[in-house]
């Protein structure tokens, strides 16, 4: 397991991944939405575009996990609480929406929306911590 490196170092290492990967994600999704016609593009092109957009996000998730391992103990505790609360809230939303879909109450929801959904709940958990709220 990676040893804690201290708050400043851990943050610098995280930003060194986050900034370029987020830029890469923005470029990939912009290029894909602008130049790829979903009706006429080959399967290979569409698959390549999907992977090119998803890979930077996966790199950011891995960087978050490394940040949690390397940062100071209090920040680690808060990050783990936010990640677990975010995960629980997302899972709850999936259960509710999933059963609503199965009983034909709501239309099908695109699977990939749960990615941004997780970051929304993760941010919400951080906000609750800042306000001094706990589950």
């Amino acid at each position, binding site marked *: 397991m990676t040893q804690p490196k*201290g*708050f*400043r*170092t851990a943050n610098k290492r995280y930003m060194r991944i986050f900034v370029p990967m987020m830029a890469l994600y923005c470029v990939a999704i912009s290029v894909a939405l602008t130049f790829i016609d979903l009706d006429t593009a080959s399967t290979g092109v569409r698959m390549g575009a999907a992977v090119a957009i998803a890979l930077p996000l996966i790199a950011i998730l891995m960087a978050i996990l490394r940040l949690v391992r390397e*940062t*100071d*103990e*209090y*920040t680690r*505790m*808060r990050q783990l609480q936010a990640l677990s609360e975010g995960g629980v809230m997302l899972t709850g939303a999936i259960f509710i929406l999933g059963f609503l879909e199965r009983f034909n109450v709501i239309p099908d929801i695109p699977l990939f929306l749960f990615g941004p959904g997780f970051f929304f709940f993760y941010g919400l958990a951080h906000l609750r911590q800042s306000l001094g709220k706990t589950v």
Partner: protein
Amino acid sequence: MENNIRALRAERGWSQQQLADLLDVSRQSVNAIETGKYDPSLPLAFAIARLFERHIEEIFDDGRSVAKAAE
């Protein structure tokens, strides 16, 4: 657990951010420890004690004296 880190910090004219930089932790960590919301681990408590050139017991107090613990 109570502590007198805020007073020790004030004696030296350090801000929470400056203390955080010296300990290589976040400012939020320093604030949480000072306000008693978070009790530091042993290594961090030792680092704080070394920084202020005090014994741990002179900085942190869990409200139980050694005499009471022996009873």
